[in-house]
């Protein structure tokens, strides 16, 4: 039995939303490329989680999840470790969810490729 439809994602206040700005992301000083992405979706949390699990299956990533937070980990060992992506789902308004995606470990180029090839085509509802 799946209870994911009972999940209430954390609700975002104005400052949470403002915090998404790339202008606050000082990691750009230290690293090439961006570290995170955000997608807006009108779908229910459970559907978003299912979609992410689907993507993980296609690329053979292992999934760990807790409430509205998921971690997708690849098996290929790169110089910086296996690509590990964390996705967190928040409520933007009662009808919109935000999926906040970040690279936790691994090579940034591989991460950019993953976002563009696997995530973007499927997640943009």
């Amino acid at each position: 039995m799946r209870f994911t439809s009972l999940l209430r994602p954390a609700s975002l206040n104005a400052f949470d939303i403002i915090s998404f700005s790339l202008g606050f992301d000082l990691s750009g000083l230290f690293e090439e490329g961006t570290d995170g992405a955000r997608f807006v979706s009108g779908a229910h949390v459970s559907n978003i989680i299912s979609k992410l699990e689907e993507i993980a299956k296609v690329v053979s990533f292992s999934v760990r999840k807790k409430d509205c937070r998921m971690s997708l980990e690849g098996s290929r060992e790169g110089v910086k470790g296996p690509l590990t992506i964390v996705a967190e789902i928040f409520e933007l308004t009662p009808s919109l969810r935000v999926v906040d995606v970040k690279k936790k470990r691994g090579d940034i180029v591989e991460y950019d490729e993953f976002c563009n090839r696997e995530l973007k085509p499927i997640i943009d509802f």
Partner: protein
Amino acid sequence: MGCFSSKARRKFPGHEDPVLLASQTAFSVSEVEALFELYKSISASVIDDGLINKEEFQLALFKNRKRENLFANRIFYLFDVDRKGFIDFGDFVRSLNVFHPNAPQEDKINFTFKLYDLDGTGYIERQEVKQMLIALLCESELKLTDDSIEIILDKTFLEADVDQDGKINKSEWHNFVDRNPSLMKIMTLPYLRDITTTFPSFVFHSEVDEIAT
């Protein structure tokens, strides 16, 4: 240890004694040295004058020197501690220090208060929050109706603006952050703990090496 600055170092306008900076911050001397490598490359990227101007800051953050961003402007403004119009090395290290995982929470909270108090009145007014929210929406792919924006502002101020005077004062901000610790996420850069592994090139440039040769 003491000041072993070589002639080349003393000529560098922004440079400050790494031992002094290390004693004032959570960084070790070798970490300050590593930050100096980073600082050198950023400060030379548009005008090679040893100082970081706004365009160089934008270039470093966005890989685009012309990209204007309200929030990057605020960060630049706060890093430029005595409003010189540029960031020198001391500013750079002391400001990044606030983002260190070991920096006091109090400093991080105070920094964000100043960050969001756009006009420096000592209060974060509803109009300022609205302006920042709209700026974020412009920069990202997020779209919200005017009504949604007002609802989000209402909700935020209901919780944060305890005396309901339309603005958030410093103590209200502290309380609000205590209840919403995720707001401080932007104020910690975990890899500041591993700076020396991010910039191995410092090993060839450190002052300690220069003494040895």
